[in-house]
């Protein structure tokens, strides 16, 4: 399901980026491929967007009968059509003129902000949650991480193209390894029980972090960190010095999530990446003060200064780990550290067999 989702969204993005350069045929052709994936998902899992398919303890439904044949047919069609679209993209000078050297994200900034997904990997940040820390079944599958160093719109398109190719390989391998058996474990969410879990997966935009605590059958606390959290601030840096007409290309090549970002902002009321670790343990009045001060200062600061702000602010928030966004940090390592810190917190509940996402 994760690879089908990646395919559908990458097709949508590749087409939409070209459409923003008024190259409509790529948009139409990629739209057809995206639709084919969604229909296959519907036939295999009972929902075009595969919503409500992942549940505590496993997945809601098994691959339907005839599913593997559907998927093999889909892979064959994509393998036949997609290379021609890639050739078209790569050999159309007017399109290349718009995407190559447009909206360059410097590798240094991608690292500072811990940018994941195609944004980070197009700017030489070789990080993919499927590889590191890695999780089943990816740790047993053969695939390559697509990394480019140009950091422009073109590189972000190419990361997606390479990932489409890798997703096809992955689906092939997963289909070959499918075995009969249960697709979900029973989870006891009865009243009085507390369960806690941490999830860290590579979505199509990048690494997604979810922490969840269930008490008495209800969600007691939840923290959702969308990849866009690290990517939105970088878009601002990327458009600097570009012509207005190239803004849509820069924007679409990022394709950040508004609602995913708001999952955090709604709680913090602040767009600064350092804010996530700051508020815990502070009084409501102090939080309000911090937010006001932070939001006043933020727009006047350059991107590099914001990175420094983040480090300073996070260091001043004692007892909290420095988050992955901090400047001059080895962001990959810190992302890991952040993950592991949380993981150790809930390791005991995991051992008791409570659900993880």
């Amino acid at each position, binding site marked *: 399901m994760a690879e089908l989702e990646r395919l559908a969204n990458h097709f949508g993005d590749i087409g939409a980026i070209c459409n923003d350069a008024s190259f409509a045929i790529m948009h139409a052709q990629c739209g057809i491929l995206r639709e084919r994936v969604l229909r296959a998902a519907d036939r295999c899992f009972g929902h*075009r967007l595969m919503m409500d398919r992942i549940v505590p303890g496993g997945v809601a439904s098994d691959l339907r009968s005839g599913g593997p044949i559907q998927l093999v047919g889909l892979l064959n069609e994509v393998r036949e059509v997609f290379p021609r679209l890639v050739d078209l993209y790569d050999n159309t000078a007017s399109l290349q003129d718009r995407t190559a050297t447009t909206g360059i994200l410097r590798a240094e900034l991608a690292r500072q902000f811990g940018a994941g997904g195609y944004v980070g990997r197009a700017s030489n940040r070789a990080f993919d949650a499927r590889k590191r820390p890695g999780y089943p079944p990816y740790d047993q599958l053969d695939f390559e991480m697509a990394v480019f160093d140009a950091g422009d719109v073109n590189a972000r398109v190419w990361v997606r193209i390479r990932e489409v190719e890798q997703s096809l390989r992955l689906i092939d391998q997963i289909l070959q390894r499918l075995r009969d058996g249960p697709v979900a474990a029973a989870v006891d969410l009865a009243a009085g029980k507390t369960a806690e879990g941490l999830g860290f997966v590579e979505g199509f935009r990048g690494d997604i972090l979810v922490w969840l605590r269930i008490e008495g059958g209800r969600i007691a606390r939840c923290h959702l960190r969308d990849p866009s959290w690290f990517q939105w601030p970088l878009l601002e840096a990327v458009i600097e010095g570009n012509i207005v007409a190239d803004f849509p290309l820069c924007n679409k090549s990022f394709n950040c999530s508004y609602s995913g970002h708001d999952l955090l902002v709604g709680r913090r009321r602040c767009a600064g990446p350092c804010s996530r670790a700051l508020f815990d343990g502070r009084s409501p009045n102090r939080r309000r003060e911090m937010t006001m001060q932070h939001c006043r200062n933020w727009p006047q600061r350059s991107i590099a200064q914001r990175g420094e702000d983040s480090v300073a602010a996070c260091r001043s928030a004692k007892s909290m780990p420095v988050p992955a966004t901090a400047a001059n940090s080895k962001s990959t390592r810190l992302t890991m550290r952040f993950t592991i810190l949380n993981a150790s917190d809930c390791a005991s509940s995991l051992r008791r067999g409570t659900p993880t996402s």
Partner: protein
Amino acid sequence: MVTGPLTKNMREALERTYHATPDPKWVIAVGDCAINGGIFTGSYACVGRVADVVPVDLHIPGCPPSPKVLLRGLLTLLKA
């Protein structure tokens, strides 16, 4: 066509859009959230159903509705 849960922020925008649209007009509530609030039912940020604010001529259920269901709904309205 009105999609998504009707939020308090968007209530006035919906009402003004409805009144600014000349007759003949139809309102279609598309998706479970527009029809009954969906998973946002009871949220402090939501008003409730679209039908509570403007008269709805057709409900198209689904989360989200598939393209086929959408087309079938629209055709049904045209024929009615």
